[in-house]
């Protein structure tokens, strides 16, 4: 099989997740309504109550709220995988004439693409609220969101393949959502949490802190210049490492460990 055959297979596998968009119509409508409420009502109220130096907390908060949605949408891909395991669809995919590593990357990219597409209406709201008119900035935000979503979806899918249980996954996702989102710079600037050492260091190593601050550097550099979790170069290096680790773990898992047979 040539590299082109592999790329073609990868695109088709990625399309598996994208074509399922319509199953989420109600879920997406709810998420979008909640996001509008969060940004246009709650965000404005909070911004009036919180003061962090000269930081425009509302703009800071809006990007954070988007990152929280992107994280949540990507994690939903784990639930998709467990559901597919229960329905025997993972068995079906494992039987297809596709290399396992192509299947792993394809599902991660497809999951990321689908999470990104689910979050796109919210991204458009963010662009409008922040007044971003620059096309390169908008495209850079979209691309970064897609890459982050793919990494997170890859992790969520790998965890789901190991757990093979919607109950266990629910618990883990609840805990990870509570911990990872809260112990990060999604809603609180790194300077504001430095008073609590444990919180500060956990936020520093949390991939979500790096992801959200990278998005802020693209979207609102004038607001967050000098107050991100790390320098731009360090964030890029951290996130690249995270993405590579996420993909490699998915590859090893799917290639060496995973087999079909839900409940066996």
């Amino acid at each position: 099989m040539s590299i082109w055959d592999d790329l073609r297979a990868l695109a088709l596998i990625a399309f598996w997740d994208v074509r399922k968009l319509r199953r989420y119509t109600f879920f997406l409508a709810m998420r979008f309504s909640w996001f509008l409420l969060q940004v246009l009502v709650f965000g404005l109220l909070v911004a009036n109550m919180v003061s962090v130096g000269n930081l425009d907390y509302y703009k800071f908060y809006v990007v954070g709220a988007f990152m929280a949605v992107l994280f949540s949408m990507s994690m939903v891909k784990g639930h998709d995988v467990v559901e597919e395991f229960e329905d025997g669809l993972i068995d079906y995919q494992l039987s297809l004439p596709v290399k396992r590593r192509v299947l792993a990357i394809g599902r991660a990219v497809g999951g990321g693409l689908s999470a990104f597409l689910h979050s796109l209406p919210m991204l458009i709201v963010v662009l409008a609220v922040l007044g971003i008119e620059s096309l390169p900035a908008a495209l850079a935000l979209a691309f970064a969101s897609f890459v982050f979503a793919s990494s997170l979806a890859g992790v969520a899918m790998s965890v789901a393949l190991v757990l093979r249980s919607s109950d266990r996954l629910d618990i883990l996702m609840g805990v990870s959502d509570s911990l990872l989102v809260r112990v990060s710079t999604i809603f609180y600037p790194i300077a504001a949490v430095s008073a609590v050492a444990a919180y500060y260091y956990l936020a520093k190593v949390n991939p979500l802190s790096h992801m959200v601050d990278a998005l802020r550097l693209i979207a609102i550099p004038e607001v967050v210049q000098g107050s991100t979790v790390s320098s731009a170069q360090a964030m890029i290096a951290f996130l690249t490492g995270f993405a590579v680790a996420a993909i490699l773990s998915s590859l090893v898992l799917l290639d060496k460990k995973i087999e079909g047979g839900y409940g066996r």
Partner: protein
Amino acid sequence: MGAAVRVRGLVKKFGNFTAVNGLTFDIEEGEIFGLLGPNGSGKSTTLLIIATVYKPTAGDVEVYGHSVTKRPDEVRKLVGIAFQDPKALWVDNPYELLVWHAMVVGYGLLDARRAVREIMEELEIWEHRGKLFSELSGGTRKKVEIAKLFLQKPKVSIFDEPTAQLDVTTKHRVWEMIRALKDEGRTVIVATNDMTEAERLSDRVGIIYKGSLRALGSPAELKDRIPAGDVLELRVDGALGEHVISALARALGTEKLNVSNGTLKAYVNRGEEKAAIAIETLSRLGVRVRSISIKEPTLDDVFFYFTGAQLGEGK
């Protein structure tokens, strides 16, 4: 022609449960091989290992020389499987799912659309193309599942209970389509617990029971292997007690007796002679015989002879 599939010492365990226990057999290139056994006998597990969905606990399977443990990517290029339970999301529609499948197995978009239409028309499911999978009947779902394999046409096609839930007319059409795969030189493996299906389709049959292979050969060879060549079938009034069955076994000189739904089957030599002995023995024991017949053994009888069980028997 050589072996398309070589199964060697295959073992598959799920925790403490041994689903497949040391299977060894070959499937010849270009044959239709029937894997016969009741639910839970290890048929599907064996097929899923051949299709690289499961990994063997011990032993190996080679498909055209490629090991499922060492070169699974190569094996998947040669093998396709239509699962026992149709695989689709409830939001899938059959047409889109089949086009996607066709493209994954190598078709271009236009060819995929054309081929999917042809196969859906052949299986008479074209009018259901736009429905959600959740809206389809069990039979239609099954047709969508087997359509995947007729589109794919791999060198080794695996059908796991292909005609379960299908009406008689469709069943015959599917059998014809499976035979057409063989006529094209492809190897076909059919797992079934339907004796008629196994007998009508298979060049050779492997009888699998409790994870072990109990017999292997063509349907005719397997029937010939029953040493007592006749099957005495008796219908009696009332239930048959253990003492009656024991007495009858002694009188007929066979231990191979099977009682099911008021019918007693005995595997005997010289059927006519033993029929008279059976009637006399039962009369002496006060059992009224409603009917008696002497038959050639069927695959059902072969299955009972080699396993001591009946096909309806589950896990």
